[in-house]
């Protein structure tokens, strides 16, 4: 009776997951302790990045298409990580970790890009200057996120 198969992705081999250890709670909670703070900040970033990019893309997309598209991409990444954290479980944890790495790479790349080629960005993105306009939360969040998700293993 394979009780661990809640995600359809659990490997058939040895599954050293918490899901296997306690069957009644199939998904390991990722939103507990520091995880709650993490989810809260990710949620705030989702609202911030999503509303900002939707507004800018719908009203003045031609002014800085690259910047606004990057903000929208950031919003999608944030939304997905938030969903994964809330959902919990081993598969979500792995996916969220990868997304945090992608997010960190994005912040560093876009942050450097905006500093090296400011002329490409008539307007700021969420990740401009490593997220300075957002109290540097964008660059701190993926690092703390990866640490937290590693700790939860």
């Amino acid at each position, binding site marked *: 009776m394979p009780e661990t198969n809640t995600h359809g992705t659990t490997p058939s081999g040895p599954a050293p997951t918490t899901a296997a250890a306690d069957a009644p709670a199939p998904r390991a909670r990722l*939103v*507990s*302790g*520091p*995880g*709650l*703070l993490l*989810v*809260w*900040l990710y*949620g*705030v970033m989702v*609202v911030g990045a999503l*509303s900002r990019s939707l*507004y800018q893309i719908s*009203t003045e997309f031609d002014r800085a298409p690259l910047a606004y598209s990057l903000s929208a991409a950031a919003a999608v990444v944030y939304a997905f990580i938030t969903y994964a954290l809330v959902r919990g479980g081993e598969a979500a944890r792995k996916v969220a970790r990868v997304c945090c790495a992608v997010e960190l790479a994005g912040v560093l790349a876009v942050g450097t890009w905006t500093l090296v080629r400011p002329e490409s960005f008539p307007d700021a993105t969420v990740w401009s200057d490593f997220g300075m306009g957002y*109290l540097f939360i964008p660059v701190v969040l993926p690092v703390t996120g990866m640490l937290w998700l590693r700790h939860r293993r």
Partner: protein
Amino acid sequence: MLDALTTAIGVAALALAAWCGFAAFRDQPTKDWHFIGMAVVTVLVLVQLVIGLFRLAGGDRPEHGTVIFVAYLVGAFATIPAAGLLSLTERTKWGSVTVAAGAVVLAVLEVRLFDIWGGIGA
């Protein structure tokens, strides 16, 4: 009036952040008094929302756009209740940290609201 209220809410939000931060420092979850504090701040933001909408209805226009102004007003109003509800699900110091973080977010939103409305003279 709106500027003064925006400033007052910013200060109140920072005080709430410090208070809940102190609770977290003492390893305590959010308690009734903290929720009363959150309620006070939320009522202030609700008053701000109402005044803001009245000013818009009266023909005043924010310097950086009506849509952005209203979005920030609504966002500011939702911030503290959302953080407070989350802290109810986490009865440890991390609930307090989350509310403190939410209060800092609110303070930032108030600074932005100040700019969006157009600063002094309103």
